[in-house]
């Protein structure tokens, strides 16, 4: 008797889970379709295309950013492809110069629409770097090579 109870309970739970799953699958396209009606308007940004496919970025930008954030923060990896700074450079609005100053700006357009709070901008600048004189880069490059040579020699000495 008890076994039967358990089995039927289990069965009903499974059915419930399946129902939820089916609902999720069915809802996904319909949600997208609905979204088509009043999709958030956002400025696309500069350049030909994003660093990844648009569809991929829509779903995965947060994972890319989080991965990159940890790599940069803890290991000093400074590639630009998936850096937040890179996003801001391209996607800052022409009107406000920012990705999050108004509800129409690139990040806020979708995040307001989906009502997903984001706290990146508590700390990070929403505007691209102000243009600096180009000398810093040149200086860095000039410094690099002789030092490389230097240390190669130096390394051999005790």
């Amino acid at each position, binding site marked *: 008797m008890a076994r039967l109870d358990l089995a039927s309970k289990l069965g009903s739970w499974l059915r419930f889970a399946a129902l939820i799953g089916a609902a999720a699958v069915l809802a996904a396209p319909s949600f997208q379709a609905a979204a088509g009606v009043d999709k958030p308007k956002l400025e696309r940004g500069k350049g030909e295309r994003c660093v990844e496919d648009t569809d991929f970025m829509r779903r995965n930008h947060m994972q890319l950013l989080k991965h990159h*954030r940890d*790599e940069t*923060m*803890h*290991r*000093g*990896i*400074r*590639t*630009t492809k998936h850096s937040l*700074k890179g996003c*801001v450079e391209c996607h800052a609005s022409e009107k406000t110069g920012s990705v999050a100053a108004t509800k129409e700006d690139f990040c806020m357009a979708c995040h307001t629409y989906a009502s997903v709070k984001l706290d990146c901008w*508590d*700390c*990070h*600048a929403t*505007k*691209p*770097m102000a243009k600096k004189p180009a000398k*810093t880069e040149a*200086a*860095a490059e000039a*410094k*690099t090579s002789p*030092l*490389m040579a*230097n*240390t*190669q*020699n*130096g*390394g*051999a*000495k*005790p």
Partner: protein
Amino acid sequence: MSQPVRPEDKIENGERRAFLAAGAAVAGTAIAPGVLLYGMAQAKPADQPVSAKVRWGMLIDTTKCATGCTECVTACNTENSLSGKTGPQDSQWIRKVELKNLQTGARHSLPMLCQHCEHPPCVDVCPTGASFRRADGIVLVDRHICIGCRYCMMACPYKARSLVHENLTDQNPEVPRGKGCVESCTFCVQKVDRGENTTACVEACNAAGHKAMLFGDLNDPESEIAKTVKTYASTEVRADLNLNTGVRYQGI
């Protein structure tokens, strides 16, 4: 090569030189030929992690540091977009400390900043691991996981840390800062990672003609800082705590 070198792979202070001598030979043969680890430190490719073969450090000659001069402080504030205000709730990453010896009356002036310890108390006490020491010796706060408990501020013997007490805007894109997190000197990590191998304060001190501050790789026997600390007496602040600080002082 791409294997990250963790801060745990630490070398005891005394053994460091010997290790370097041996390490250099090994590095030259065993690892990619022509690319030495010291070289990596000077201009690390952007996709490579920082390495424990480098230990960034600073040497401050207090005999050259001028009383009342705050060039280093101003430069730090500009580089890291700090307000420069000095109220009790304002952040100060570097400050000038004026000293007077109680017995002899001797006066000294010196900049005090995060000492980038090898064994940082702030890292030990941080509950979430937001305070951490990078492989190359730079002590940082990961603001993504800092909860603002301020235990690190209680633990730091140098009073090097500040809490951001209010909302901030217009941060430097390379130096994110925000309300509710603890912060301190980063050794201008954005400049170091760019391969500039200097900090805003050191640049300013040199530009002002004092040349009281020297930044470089303590692990590179050919670097100016390594040669200087090997030749002349220098000391750590609160050396009794045995923290092996990355910042050392001469003349006190």
